[in-house]
């Protein structure tokens, strides 16, 4: 009896294992080529400008006293245009490698849109020259940072319910969602949460939470415009010091909270659009190496 039930358990386990293995193979077989963006709404998700070096530029190994090229590909995968871009090569030792120019500007790069669904790309060439190795050294590895900064924008828009009679017993009209979460607006900086607080004195407060979800850092974040329907909203960043509409973020704190308040004109409930426009300065650092061999 006991043996039979044990056998059944083992059989069940084996069946589950086989099922899981089949499921993994099927799922691994599908989608192995990577996702394809078939959506027309580019302003969603977390997208950013990517930086990379082309294959063999720079080469995997460099020989002493030789020329080489470093070609950086700057690809704007975000849904917004990028301006004032600068790419710098930082940290190479001139005793071993000489690169010129050390920094280059790029931009404007168009963001992804219906007119430019693949985004925009530019290639920046840096000319390099290697010096001699030290004495009998077998090799030298020169580590450096590819440092890039650029300015871009991000737009947020969503339909919100304004219901001044929220606390009435029988409340007709739209339903106020106290908190909503978002997965990004097609930029590395994203609005992640929106909270709506309606006060009985016919005022509404929106708390917008933003976070850097990209691979770099946001150095400054500025609110360009805020509207509730056709009406301008008064907003300010928490922790902002002088200019309440602009915030300087540090490496450790890459989040921000924006508080917007307005008085309600109507006593009726209605749905309207909350739209916000931000601009930000973004910094990206990538570590690379050049190997000088005998």
């Amino acid at each position, binding site marked *: 009896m006991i043996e039979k039930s044990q056998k059944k358990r083992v059989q069940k386990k084996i069946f589950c294992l086989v099922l899981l293995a089949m499921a993994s193979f099927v799922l691994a077989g599908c989608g192995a080529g990577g996702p394809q963006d078939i959506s027309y709404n580019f302003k969603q998700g977390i997208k950013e400008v990517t930086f990379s070096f082309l294959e063999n530029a720079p080469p995997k190994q460099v020989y002493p006293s030789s020329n080489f090229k470093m070609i950086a590909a700057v690809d704007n995968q975000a849904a917004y245009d990028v301006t004032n871009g600068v790419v710098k090569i930082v940290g190479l030792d001139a005793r071993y490698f000489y690169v010129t120019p050390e920094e280059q500007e790029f931009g404007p790069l168009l963001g992804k849109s219906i007119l430019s669904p693949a985004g925009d790309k530019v290639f920046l060439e840096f000319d390099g020259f290697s010096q001699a190795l030290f004495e009998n050294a*077998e090799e030298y590895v020169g580590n450096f940072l590819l440092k890039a900064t650029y300015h871009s924008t991000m737009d947020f828009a969503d339909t919100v319910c304004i219901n001044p009679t929220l606390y009435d017993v029988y409340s007709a009209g739209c339903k106020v969602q106290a908190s909503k979460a978002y997965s990004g607006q097609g930029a590395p900086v994203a609005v992640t949460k929106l909270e709506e607080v309606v006060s009985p004195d016919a005022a509404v407060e929106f708390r917008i939470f933003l976070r850097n979800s990209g691979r770099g850092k946001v150095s400054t974040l500025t609110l360009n415009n805020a509207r509730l329907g056709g009406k301008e909203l008064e907003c300010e960043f928490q922790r902002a010091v002088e200019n309440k509409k602009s915030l300087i973020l540090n490496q450790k704190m890459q989040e921000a909270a924006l508080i917007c308040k307005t008085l309600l004109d109507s006593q009726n409930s209605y749905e309207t659009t909350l739209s916000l426009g931000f601009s930000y300065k973004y910094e990206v650092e990538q570590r690379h190496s050049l190997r000088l061999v005998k």
Partner: protein
Amino acid sequence: MVASPERVTLEKEPVKREQATEKYFPPFSKAGGAVKGAVVGAAATAGSSAVDAVKDPGFILFIVGLLTFIFNEYLNNTAIAVLIGTVFMFFSAFFIFKGKGMAVTVIFWVWYVFFGGVTDIEGIKYVIIPIVLVGMVVHGLTKSISKQGTFGEGAMGELLYGAIPIMVFFLDLGLLNWLAQEFNVTLSTSSQNILLFTPWWALLGLFTTQRENTFITIARMVGVVYIFSIVLLGVVPEAYGTYKSAIPTPEEFLAAKQEISEQLPARENPLISQIACIGDADYESCIQQRQEESELRSLCKKNEEVQKGVLTFDDCLTEEKKKKEEAKYLVGGVIDPTIKLPTKFKLEIDREFFPFKTYLEFSSPEYPITLKYENTRAPVKVDLSCAFVKGSEELPGKITSGENITLPVGSGTEGITCVPEGTLKGKYELRVTAFFKDLETATHLTRFFVGEKDSQEVVEIQKAIEKTESRDLAYFSTSQFPADLARFNFGFGSPPKNPLIVGGKPVQLGMSILNSGEGKLWEIKSYGVILEGFNAPCLSKSNIKIPSDEQSNKQIIIPGCQIMDYPGELKNPEEYLKRTFEARMVYDYQLENKFAVEIVGKTG
């Protein structure tokens, strides 16, 4: 209403232990049966304990894992290593963790072995993660439907119990070795022990045994003692930190393991040292001595000259001990790891043909000595001399092969013949001296110029440098040089060992010379620190005669000075500027070697 479980009636009464012993191990005779029964019972308990342990998958993994670890050197093959790791991984996932992490383990294995562990972020986000999540959900549902636990237990168990076999799989292949090699981490003693002496699968098996009995308890205690003994100092290697986009293949792991094992001298297992030193008055020193001696013995076993018979094992041990002593005198400065061919000189004899004893009846004394040179970077002038010493008496010899020679660039040997001037009889010490003229050595030092920055910015720049270089800034505090006979060491900054130069204020330059050879540093013909555009009064000097009583000193301090100014381009960079500076030194060096010889006079 919940039905009560059906009562199961056993067909037979369970046999009591005493009856079992009686039944299966019948006593030889009734007389003394109590004693014999007790002995047999104890044996049966121990025997059944061992049999019980064998049924335990954890114990099986412990034994098999230990055996593969012991015979590891014969299994030096990537395919076999991956196969063994795979078998152990699935064995532990299925039998030890009861399939709780099976989905994650299977997915990992398919991804790593079949798809080569691609790390495309999009692939991971849109393929791997959903598969893992589906696996967790399925397992959670299976567990909750079969009423073996909650959904949460099933889902989280999938992740946790899948991660353990995967991590041990990587560790066994050589994850720590790869990390140490890839990030140029200098390994502490305990770290080396972890790399060389840890049987990962065996440990997993040992600590996941379900059964508790005498055999397993003892084995577990031994395992704990073993771990503590090899990780005695408990220092963890420096943080590795940097994100790498590619996950190494099994070949890369194993290659790293092989390379690290070859680099690290094979030392005695620390547990054996500890056992051997039990009872020694100075326990700690005894262990350290045994470890050091085993390290030197393994170095000498691999020594080419010992293998060829040119150098005896004992002489090699003596030399290696000397080198270890001298290394203690290296104050500041490290040997450049990228220079694998340092310049070396040696006066040696061929023990097979050297006439330790000469009979004047048959021949006149003639002593062949070899001057061996390696990796000279320029022609080297050498003045040779020899003498026969007996007590306070010193009788000159003559170098018949040429007292002034020039060694070419590269490596090779030069034969020297020394004959006594005059007739000698008895035991002497043949002293051969080689005086190398105008030997040149070079040193390099790296500094980071930060410019005028506030303290917060300096901290951020330091972090950026450490991230870029994948090492602590302290690595750059001292200069690096090839392992030549004498080495020039320098540093500048505030203080001289600080590699970050902040602002444009004057900084200090410190210098010293290290005598790393076995001979005497006779004279510094010249030295120069190449700092173009730097304003400092002590960057170079010539003709520094070393007093005779200091010629054998390991370190000679050269007076430093302040660098009052340096080039404008280095003073205020936007980020930071990394620069390497060199120094060169030309010196005369005297090397000596002594050999015991005997000249037997003519009879009659």
